[in-house]
């Protein structure tokens, strides 16, 4: 199949489709500020989780969070561009800068071609709170300032990055809770596969400020293992007690094989499968059937069998119910294949809207460096995770094909499959 710019439409049943490759990635997360730092953290099984006393003072049940440093954008962006960006927009900008550089795409290229953006984001709490605080105090909307509206909309990332990079192709935000980033890549894949676009900036971003997670903390969904922050995120482990919120930005440049070849770009991988489903059940309780349908759809789309997958990057967030359901779903499709599984959320915490995109970046780094990052803190399985082949320690491995799961509130599920590129 390699070499031809087209492939059969897989499960879609629609003739020949364009092949979709990844030509650039960028990351800004609690594991590091660039691909090199993050790659090292993944290999070393390093946790990015801290205890934030400010959260405790504010009344959070859990003060645990991923720690992401504020990027310095002065010198990179003018004032107008900077003040429009909320926190997660800053992360997304840095990740996108790195991804475009990696892809060899410069401003001249963007000016001359119709490059799009499809990015996952599902909140922007801080500017909303700060704007309303000003309004309550001053009783005058104008004193909220000019930037607030552009920071608060859910589409803040796509509206800002499309302006900064002067993008002229498809341009909208995907909001699908914790599957936002994954669906953004999945939709980008379809836009290119069907010939609507040649190149799209995809990804996901997640804010991490004090205001962004209070209502999630209210659900008692977060781990309270505050005495051991770096041991608190323990997906699939018997003694897990909840997730840890985290954030950052992750960008994946998708391109048609024709476009990448024409540019002479380095191809990092090929997106070969996207599956999705909705549970059709409870707003926050997971199901097994929904993820299974998503997994099976992705395999059909990729025209692959379970045994063809070398590594699974699980969604597993370290919650009791979520991990158990995902373990059952993965086991029902992959138990016989004994496919290695790890959740990088054991190190990052749950990067929510960004997670589906960052986990593609993490998995691509593993693919290129030839290792599987560990599911740290996995000490004892429970009945469900015992059915999986969970990677406890960093393991050298030639990953030819990986699969990444993302699930979100409302029962939205997304599965992506990426294959190593070879001519």
């Amino acid at each position: 199949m390699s070499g031809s710019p087209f492939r059969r439409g897989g499960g879609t049943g629609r003739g020949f489709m364009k092949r979709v490759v990844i030509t650039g990635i960028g990351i800004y997360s609690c594991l590091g500020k660039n691909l090199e730092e993050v790659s090292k953290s993944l290999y070393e099984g390093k946790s990015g989780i801290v205890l934030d006393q400010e959260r405790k003072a504010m009344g959070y049940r859990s003060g645990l969070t991923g720690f992401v440093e504020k990027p310095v954008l002065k010198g990179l962006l003018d004032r107008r561009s900077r003040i429009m960006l909320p926190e997660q927009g800053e992360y997304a900008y840095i990740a996108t800068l790195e991804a475009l550089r990696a892809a060899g795409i410069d401003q001249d290229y963007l000016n001359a071609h119709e490059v799009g953006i499809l990015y996952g984001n599902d909140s922007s709490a801080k500017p909303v709170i700060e704007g309303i605080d000003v309004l309550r105090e001053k009783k005058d909307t104008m004193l909220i300032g000019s930037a607030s509206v552009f920071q608060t909309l859910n589409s803040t990332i796509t509206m800002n990055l499309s302006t900064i990079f002067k993008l002229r192709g498809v341009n909208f935000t995907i909001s699908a809770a914790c599957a936002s980033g994954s669906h953004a890549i999945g939709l980008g894949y379809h836009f290119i596969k069907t010939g609507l676009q040649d190149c799209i900036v995809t990804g996901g971003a997640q804010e991490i400020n004090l205001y962004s997670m209070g209502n999630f903390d209210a659900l008692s969904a977060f781990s309270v293992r505050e005495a051991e922050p770096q041991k608190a995120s323990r997906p699939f482990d018997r003694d897990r007690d909840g997730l840890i919120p985290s954030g950052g930005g992750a960008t994946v440049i998708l391109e048609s094989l024709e476009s990448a070849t024409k540019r002479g770009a380095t191809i990092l991988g090929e997106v070969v499968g996207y599956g999705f489903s909705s549970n059709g059940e409870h707003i926050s309780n997971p199901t097994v059937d929904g993820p299974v349908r998503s997994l099976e759809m992705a395999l059909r789309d990729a025209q692959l069998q379970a045994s063809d997958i070398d590594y699974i990057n699980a969604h597993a967030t370290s919650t009791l119910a979520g991990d158990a359901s995902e373990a059952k779903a993965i086991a029902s499709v992959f138990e016989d294949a004994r496919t290695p599984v790890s959740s990088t959320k054991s190190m990052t915490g749950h990067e929510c809207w960004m997670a589906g995109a960052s986990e593609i970046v993490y998995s691509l780094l593993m693919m290129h460096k030839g290792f599987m990052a560990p599911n740290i803190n996995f000490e004892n399985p429970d009945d469900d995770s015992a059915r999986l082949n969970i990677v406890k320690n960093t393991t050298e491995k030639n990953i030819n094909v990986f699969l990444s799961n993302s699930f979100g509130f409302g029962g939205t599920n997304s599965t992506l499959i990426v294959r190593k590129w070879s001519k």
Partner: protein
Amino acid sequence: MVQKDEIIAKINHFLAEEFEVEEADITPGGNVKEVLELDSLDYIDLVVVIENNFAFKVKPEDFTNIITFNDFYNYVEARVNSKELA
């Protein structure tokens, strides 16, 4: 009465800070829009910084008569001192 020199120094300082220009570039005869490179959105932020520094609200239409920094100083001086008298 607030002294005009004091007002000018304060204005130059916060404008330079907010709009990221050198204070030396702000001269009485200079064109506010051009020196500060203001677009339509920036005028809203100008209202905000004036309110934050002098505690009065500029009506957007007042900007139509403010062309130079000297116009700006005179306008602020008048507003500040009329507020003090009120």
